[in-house]
């Protein structure tokens, strides 16, 4: 398709807008660090609509740009670790025919949290955050499921777009 670059731009813009919308939602679930991960919705869709290399590029561009705009040096490192681990896990599950978009997204949500937790352990040089794992696992399943269901609907309706 000729307009790959244009589509990539649209996906990047969408991911950024969702990052922004996320900062507007005051839901904190009472647990620090747990977010809905709206921008991941775009990454999941990109995974199904673009080449894998482009999905990775989108993920990195999204994290760096939204980090500069809404976050800081720390948030970029965290999001990058979470985003890349998450995308890698999702790409692996997607290759396996036994998983639907929901399953792929759940794996992505969980791995996103695990990636961030690993960086947190490295930064503060302690493993004591490990007690936080159950919370992050369950939160990852819940947010991944929501994102997966929405992504599922969108991918189905965007069936004419395939980059």
């Amino acid at each position, binding site marked *: 398709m000729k307009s790959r670059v244009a589509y990539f731009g649209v996906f990047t813009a969408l991911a950024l807008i969702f990052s922004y919308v996320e900062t507007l939602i005051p839901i904190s679930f009472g647990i620090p660090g747990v977010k809905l991960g709206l921008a991941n919705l775009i990454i999941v869709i990109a995974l199904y609509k673009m080449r894998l290399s482009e999905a990775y590029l989108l993920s990195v561009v999204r994290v760096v740009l939204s980090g500069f705009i809404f976050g800081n040096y720390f948030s970029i490192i965290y999001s990058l670790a979470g985003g890349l681990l998450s995308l890698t896990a999702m790409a692996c599950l997607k290759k396996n025919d036994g998983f639907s978009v929901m399953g792929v997204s759940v794996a992505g949500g969980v791995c996103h949290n695990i990636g961030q937790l690993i960086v947190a352990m490295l930064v503060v040089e302690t493993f004591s955050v490990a007690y936080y794992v*159950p919370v992050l696992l369950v939160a990852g*399943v819940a947010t991944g499921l929501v994102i997966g269901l929405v992504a599922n609907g969108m991918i189905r309706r965007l069936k004419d777009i395939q980059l």
Partner: protein
Amino acid sequence: MGENHTKKFRFKKKDWLLIGIIVVVAGAAFLFHELIGGEGAGVISVKVDGVLEGTYTLSKDQEISINGGTNILIIKDGKADMEEADCPDQLCVHQKAISKNHESIICLPHKVVVEVESAESGKLDGISN
């Protein structure tokens, strides 16, 4: 497209299997922490950038200024809670109060780690209080 296309959009057996395994692992980790962590907790250690700044007993109500005042920790009713921090995200302030073994409050911008330790190890290398 056709049937093949619609199939991709339904939940599959492996989806539920994946979700089930993750939830079971989370439950097991939670139980492990609840069973192992409850006993023997007595002191908290405060580390800044990996260096021990002090250990404090949970049995005495007190206010601790960490890292030259960037963070204020309150110990009350056997629980330690981050009361104030001058970082923008305030994540450590929002974390719940800690009292069980190996629970921690972490302030990433200042690299402050507050962790509950068992009273025994606290006596061995206690610095203050």
